[in-house]
């Protein structure tokens, strides 16, 4: 019998190494194996024979693990990101290529900055095009990494080409607000354009869309970390060089744009290759900030409901609330990407629900007052963009709240929430594209 235990342990260790399976899955499969062995032994087979047959019946570990990974796409994602590891040749290529893309983005950004004389001259074309100096390289990096086919390359290039044409051919009024709206929304449009090569063209797959949401969240964390480190580096550089009579500001002007552009690509590469590190960070960040935001939102909602809005709010307020909704949505998405969809509702889900409902209550109060205001003052490009974004976010969170309410009441599963969010990504992309494409002509490029 000892020999059998040894063989089972060995088989189990092999299973544990396959990334699609977690500890409980392995336990479940082991119990299955033991049941099968018991039955075969009872039917008269020797233990070692029974073991061989039972293992064979369970199927090849690779195939089974692949099937598990396909079902738990979150695990599969980690798999995709890490595959190729242990292949030294691939490793050396893997950091060289993103580095080239990062350098290219940095050089293009710097060249454009010099041509525009930024920041001394605030040329508006530079602001409008800023995203186009960087994100095409990110898209190119993923297109190469995923090995897109030629026809897919064309589809991947199209949104960049179209927006480059539009942004530069539209007769924008210098320093008009539509210019700034385009500068603010084009990065979002192009980010969704990056989704195409990132997902190797499988835009319809909800699982892959969820991967892109995960990627975006992790990318943001890495980018913030890089920015933080870069800030410290710059601060110390300035502090050291200023006494020596070097014009530190000129250095900043050179280094900052290049650093920021390069960091976009480097952060993406870090997400791709150093997945495991962040994996533990996103859930922790969500755990810390979701309750804090929930408390803040509930208090704010109570204060607003008690004191009323009065004349205390101005045009900026809608922008602030857009930001708030984006943050709440971000928390929802982070929470979602970090959680195991099969889990029962827990206290984190409840806190998140409270945060979403409080944010909704707040936003509805502001929105109601704002719509009255706009009725009086008329539409401007800024108000239209802010209001539109607010409504787009509101619809998303209302349905999210409804679905998570059902989930918490155990009348539904987590699955519809995920589906709703991944489906809604198209609406976000469409809205950002509308602001870039439709709003400027609508307000005669003012």
């Amino acid at each position, binding site marked *: 019998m000892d020999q059998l235990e040894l063989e089972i342990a060995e088989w189990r260790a092999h299973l544990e190494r396959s990334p699609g399976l977690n500890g409980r899955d392995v336990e*479940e499969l082991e*119990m299955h194996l033991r049941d099968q062995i018991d039955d075969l032994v009872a039917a008269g087979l020797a233990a070692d024979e029974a073991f061989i047959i039972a293992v064979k019946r369970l199927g090849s570990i690779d195939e089974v693990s692949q099937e598990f990974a396909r079902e738990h796409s979150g695990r599969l994602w980690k798999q995709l990101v890490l595959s190729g590891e242990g292949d030294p040749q691939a490793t050396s290529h893997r950091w060289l290529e993103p580095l080239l893309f990062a350098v290219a983005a940095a050089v293009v950004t710097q060249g454009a900055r010099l041509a525009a004389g930024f920041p001394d001259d605030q040329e508006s074309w530079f602001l409008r095009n800023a995203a186009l100096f960087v994100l095409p390289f990110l898209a190119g990096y993923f297109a190469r990494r995923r090995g897109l086919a030629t026809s897919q390359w064309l589809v991947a290039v199209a949104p960049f080409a179209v927006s480059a044409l539009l942004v530069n051919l539209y007769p924008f009024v210098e320093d008009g607000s539509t210019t700034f709206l385009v500068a603010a929304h084009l990065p979002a449009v192009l980010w969704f354009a990056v989704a195409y090569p990132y997902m190797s063209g499988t835009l319809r797959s909800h699982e892959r869309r969820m991967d892109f949401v995960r990627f975006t969240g992790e990318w943001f964390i890495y980018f913030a970390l890089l920015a933080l480190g870069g800030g410290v580096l710059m601060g110390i550089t300035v502090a050291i060089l200023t006494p020596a009579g070097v014009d530190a500001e000129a250095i900043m002007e050179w280094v900052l744009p290049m650093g920021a552009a390069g960091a976009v690509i480097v952060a993406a590469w870090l997400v791709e290759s150093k997945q495991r590190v962040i994996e533990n960070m996103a859930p922790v960040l969500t755990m810390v900030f979701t309750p804090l935001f929930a408390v803040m939102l509930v208090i704010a909602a109570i204060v607003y409901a008690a004191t009323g809005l009065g004349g205390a709010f101005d045009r900026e307020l809608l922008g602030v609330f857009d930001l708030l909704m984006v943050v709440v949505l971000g928390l929802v998405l982070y929470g979602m990407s970090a959680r195991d969809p099969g889990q029962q509702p827990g206290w984190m889900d409840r806190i998140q629900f409270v945060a979403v409902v409080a944010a909704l209550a707040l936003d509805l109060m502001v929105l109601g007052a704002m719509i009255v205001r706009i009725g009086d003052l008329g539409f401007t490009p800024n108000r239209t963009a802010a209001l539109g974004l607010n409504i787009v976010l509101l619809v998303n969170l209302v349905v999210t709240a409804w679905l998570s309410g059902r989930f918490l009441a155990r009348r539904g599963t987590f699955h519809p929430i995920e589906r709703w969010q991944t489906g809604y990504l198209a609406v976000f992309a469409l809205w950002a594209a509308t602001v870039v494409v439709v709003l400027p002509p609508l307000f005669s490029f003012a």
Partner: protein
Amino acid sequence: MYLVVICLLLLAKEGWLDIDKDLVAASATPLVLTILEEGESYGYAILKRVRELSNGEMEWTDGMLYPLLHRLHRLGLVTHDWRLSPEGRRRRYYAITDEGRAALEEHKRQWVAVARTLRDAWGGALPTLASGSP
């Protein structure tokens, strides 16, 4: 010793009607849901029941059952929890939910429609199989 095993495997293989892989995959969900409708169960027992119901004609790779069960759980068609079995073994028991029953009804509707169509196409009766099950 190993020869015996191989012979056993070959022997077991013979006489099986190999049902097409796609058909097995398509029928897996309704089959599992039906078995769970009879009462809660765990993976190994579900597979034994599949063999019993199909007279061994439907052969699954055992390991593939679990990803399927997890998918059904994610879609809210079944629930699961870990319990100690009477034999003292920790097992994950699966039970069907109301949504699972509704999904099963839908599956049944579709399969009956398919079966009826084929039966009509074959002249009103299911043909007897040339090489039947043992």
